[in-house]
């Protein structure tokens, strides 16, 4: 059974005026996620990447079509049930949060027992493990507000892991990170995927990172699926040039065999 399934999904935001050329922000999106894969979602801005995440975490509901998680329709689940299966790591956290790392990671335990007032020792154990996995255990009592960007990112990931989800969704995980932390982040994700078997969905601007990390890619253009497949198939010169509107060249990485996208900078 696929971990997730999109079937003919279309969506438009109610507050914005529908455009003549593009009545839907997303239209006719259908794909399946296999358990344990690392799945990348690519595309230019306003292609619908963030909307996809919102649909997957039921922040918004599709105008048409259905979304299923492990065979159960999203609409039929309660919010807590969904949160136990799908965890989202947002791009960034609000500034100046007064909570400690531990308190923040513990928030990930909420969907498992929404009615309980205080967390149990089991919750504390899960949180501890998540912090260990992301290397923030020694920061457990530090206030999140004083951490660096990379550390905050790891804390957010720890919180998502504490949710013990089947599906982990990351929104631009490396967008604000230094190079070093980008490398660490990728390694971390790989480890999580391997050791826990968690399915990962990654939304990224960084074509090469996606190409290096993901098993399959989905390229969105103007709300439609432009191509779905392994990196070699999706990171293809003519396709990328058309979708992104600027000339690119694609080569092979000599070591890994994965495609590498080169941009033709105009001088």
């Amino acid at each position: 059974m696929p971990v997730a399934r999109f079937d003919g999904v279309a969506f438009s935001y109610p507050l914005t005026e529908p455009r003549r050329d593009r009545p839907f922000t997303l239209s006719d999106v259908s794909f399946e996620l296999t358990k344990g894969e690392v799945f990348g979602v690519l595309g230019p801005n306003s292609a619908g990447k963030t909307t996809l995440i919102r649909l997957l975490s039921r922040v918004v509901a599709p105008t048409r079509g259905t979304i299923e998680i492990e065979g159960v329709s999203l609409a039929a689940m309660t919010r807590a049930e969904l949160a136990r299966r799908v965890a989202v790591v947002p791009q960034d956290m609000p500034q100046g949060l007064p909570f400690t790392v531990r308190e923040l990671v513990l928030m990930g335990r909420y969907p498992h027992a929404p009615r309980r007032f205080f967390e149990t020792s089991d919750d504390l154990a899960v949180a501890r493990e998540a912090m260990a996995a992301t290397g923030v255990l020694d920061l457990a009592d530090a206030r999140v507000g004083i951490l660096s960007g990379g550390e905050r990112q790891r804390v957010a990931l720890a919180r998502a892991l504490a949710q013990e989800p089947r599906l982990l969704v990351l929104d631009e995980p490396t967008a604000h990170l230094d190079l070093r932390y980008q490398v660490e982040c990728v390694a971390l994700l790989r480890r999580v995927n391997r050791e826990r078997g968690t399915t990962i969905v990654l939304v990224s601007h960084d074509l090469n990172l996606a190409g290096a990390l993901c098993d399959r890619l989905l390229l969105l253009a103007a709300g439609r699926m432009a191509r779905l497949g392994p990196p070699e198939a999706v990171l293809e010169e003519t396709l990328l040039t058309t979708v992104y509107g600027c000339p690119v060249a694609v080569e092979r990485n000599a070591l890994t065999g994965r495609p590498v996208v080169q941009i033709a900078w105009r001088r």
Partner: protein
Amino acid sequence: MTRRLVGALATLAAILLAVAVVAVFLGSARLSPLTVLRTLGGGAGADSTENIVILGLRLPRIAAAVLAGGALAVAGVGFQALTRNPLAEPSVLGVSAGASFGVVVGQLVGSSGALFDTVRVAAFGFGGALVAGAAVYLIASVHGTFPIQTLLLAGVIVGIFFGAAVTVLISLVDIDRLGGVVHWLLGNIAPLPARSLLVFAALAAAGFAAIVSQARELNVLALGEEAARQLGIDAERVKVQVFVAAALLTASVVAFAGPIGFVGLIVPHMLRLLLGPDNRLLVPTAMVGGGAFLLVADTIARNAVAPAELSVGIITSFFGAPFFVYLLRTRRGVL
């Protein structure tokens, strides 16, 4: 965690008890401690002065102060968590001004021969609070959602409107009644009759229960509404429930005691400095800590210039304004 909460509650309850005991012994009637103890033990005659003073005046007033302080502090915690803004205070969301307007109307309406009725005035206060709350709700809701920024703005607007309305009423009022109205607007704790105290306590309990049940959710709401939703929280429901409960608490206090400022701002901050940002600790301790705080202020108001009395609102503002400045200057991280 439970241990921390119990420990904090026990400490604050002990402080509250101590303050209450002191408050019973102090007053312009200057009764000796022995007399007070005897009266509390039931040793004084049914119509005696001691009975009137201790059982009819001091105890009811102490009870009213504790209830009002607790209600305001809990409402303050709720509003601050809801708006993710440390400057939020019960009066910021317009409800307090609406309740004031209702009460002023209630005091002016009614023939000159009619006497003051606590319940009638309280009813007017609620009416005003309801109108203001509904106005804020209608202005702030966008397609069925409740964006926080719009909520704050709507609250400020509604508050300004009703504040102006109160000023207009004051300028039209007879010079005779003016003193009474102005006095009320400063906020005062009065020895409420038992029936009113029960109603007040019931309302405070209801508001408290509604907010404390969402304490964990309020914590998660700090991550942002989208993130909270993704963690399984019905953000709209939490917002509406906390807003209505905090408005109810504020309206009760205004109806039974008048608009008392700063308690809802200072007490949550003081507790946050001591206990941290977790609302599961803050909400229950605010109920007790707020009560102790306002009781201290009211005891000062009652005794500082005896036999004349100051309005408790003056005392809380007097301490509140410098505290506010201190907050802004130090910008402690827990904000």
